[in-house]
């Protein structure tokens, strides 16, 4: 989070105007998505991946920790959801809680090993653990169903006691996932703008400075990793519902790489909403270009290279800088900033 966003009045709010606009816009999606030539399931997918990418960005963007194996926690959540449904209880809330807790435990376990490491060693430790989880998913056939994964996962109804919603249709599922998305966004917004989030931002700027100021840096690094993993697990559980299955593909390194790409293309390093923008661009590119050519990854790869080369702050950064360039308000702000910096 940049200095500008944390000093704006929005930082103190529970719900910001941007959030409201976004949620309302998303709530209309099922009304027009079929007319736009797409399908409701795409909306579900975008929301699930958005939760996943926002959770991941807590580690990469807010705390500046290079984790390249987050697919593991997404996958752990998906498997835990399926296993809980098959073996413990078919109740939706129990299964979602089981998925979140399983991913949290996995995240804590890994965080204990990696939180004293930095840079390339940190990055590769996350990859190594991701590969360990992935290998288990593929080889522990009796538990996970091997390469096929867990099949026939049901979408249990969302039971609120007095009223119960059937989630078997994609539109109903969309609104359920949207509700989770709303909660996740509010929670993450508060977390990022809390004193805890400020310390994470300080760690991102300089681990050494933060530790010399007396903060237990490793504890912050470990806890943010665990929180992020838990939320990724929740997203994974929703994904298992959406796909009616849990399979090892989501845990492999390429998939973990995709979420890094989405976050960066969208501009997660400079903006809270970057991951959401990135997910939407990625999945829409997949479906729109994918309709014309099988090699859409080639084009997305080229786009990604161009973003890294010329706009490392991503789409959100691009929009922001053009907004500042073209609006009087933006010019006034940058003039003020100049004055205060020089004075």
């Amino acid at each position: 989070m940049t200095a500008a966003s944390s000093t704006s009045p929005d930082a103190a709010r529970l719900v910001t105007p941007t959030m409201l606009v976004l949620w309302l816009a998303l709530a209309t999606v099922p009304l027009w998505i079929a007319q736009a030539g797409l399908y409701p399931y795409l909306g579900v997918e975008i929301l699930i991946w958005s939760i996943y990418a926002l959770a991941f960005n807590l580690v990469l963007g807010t705390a500046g920790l290079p984790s390249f194996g987050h697919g593991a926690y997404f996958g752990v959540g998906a498997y835990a959801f399926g296993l809980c449904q098959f073996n413990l209880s078919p109740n939706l809330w129990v299964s979602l809680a089981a998925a979140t807790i399983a991913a949290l435990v996995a995240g804590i376990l890994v965080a204990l090993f990696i939180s004293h490491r930095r840079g390339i060693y940190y990055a590769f430790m996350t990859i190594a653990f991701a590969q360990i989880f992935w290998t288990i998913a593929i080889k522990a056939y009796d538990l996970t169903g091997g390469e096929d994964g867990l099949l026939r996962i049901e979408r249990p109804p969302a039971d609120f006691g007095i009223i119960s919603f059937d989630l078997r249709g994609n539109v109903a599922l969309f609104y359920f996932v949207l509700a989770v998305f709303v909660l996740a966004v509010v929670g993450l917004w508060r977390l990022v703008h809390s004193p805890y989030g400020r310390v994470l931002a300080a760690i991102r700027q300089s681990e050494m400075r933060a530790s010399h100021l007396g903060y237990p840096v490793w504890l912050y690094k470990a806890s943010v990793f665990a929180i992020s993993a838990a939320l990724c697990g929740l997203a994974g559980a929703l994904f298992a519902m959406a796909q009616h299955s849990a399979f090892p593909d989501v845990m492999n390194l390429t998939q973990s790489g995709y979420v890094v790409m989405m976050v960066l293309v969208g501009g997660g390093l400079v903006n809270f909403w970057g991951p959401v923008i990135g997910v939407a661009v990625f999945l829409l590119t997949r479906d729109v270009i994918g309709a014309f050519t099988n090699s859409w990854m080639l084009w997305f790869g080229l786009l990604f290279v161009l973003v890294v080369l010329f706009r490392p702050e991503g789409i959100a950064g691009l929009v922001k800088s053009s907004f500042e360039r073209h609006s009087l308000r933006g010019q006034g702000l940058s003039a003020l900033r100049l004055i205060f910096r020089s004075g």
Partner: protein
Amino acid sequence: MLDLLPHLVNGLVLGLLFALIALGFMLIVGLMEQINLAHGSLFALGAYMGLQFIGPNPPLPADLTTYWLQLPLGWRYALALVIAPCLVGVVGIAVEVCMRRTYGKDPLYGLLLTFGAAMVIEEGIRLIWGTRDYVLEVPRAVSGAFFFQDLIWSTYRFYAAGTAAAVIGLVWLMIEKTSYGAIIKAGAHDSEMVRALGINLSRLRLSVFVFGTILAAFAGIILAPIWGIRPHMGVDAVVPAFLVIVLGGVGSFWGAVAASILVGLAIGLSAAYASEWSLLSMYLLLVAVVTFRARGLFGKKSVLEA
């Protein structure tokens, strides 16, 4: 004890092959402090290029093709081992030129750029060669099998391991014993001073990167008959390469070689007891070492851990 011998030998062979795969990656990490995630795709591209030259449709002008196809397989193979990596080196030039913008920034950007390049190259491979598996033909002299102590051993694996050892030795001699190597090391150590002495640093970096690319492609051709040629082979190569560099410690040549051998032995020995899970052993080995040693086995201080 005797029944472990084949697993030990296999592990040692595998270790040397891992070292060969990691060699180009290691040079670029050690001398440029850049992580080249495109290493795996360049490795795969080398294998495909080699395949194209050795196979029935070499990418040559028509009159040259008839002459080329009359050459015995051994000659074609030997020439492909030289020509194909050089062609892949051209792709390496393109990647390095793009990468220049990321020098001096957070190493994350170089890593992400090469991740994107890896995707583009891998998709390019799928576009040109399709997704099917290919088998690389090798000369009679290095294929086949032989008997030793009542066991069948594949000749090719020993040829590949021997080649790996020879290339590792040559690269080490080049870095340590030539003035060119001295300049490269100095460039990694204090780039400003090297530039002040009138050496063209960007050309130096380009040549290091291209050399690393050529080594990746060479390793691809050597490994192709063992692993088979398919688009995904790049990812299968870059992960162990990255792993041995981290395990050995950034900036240590023999650390990486020692780590490769250790990883090979770990895989070979665990295959004796639980072949299904043998690939897990290298990750467990890494976690065990890096948990206790912040810079791997013999790592040095580097900007990559900032």
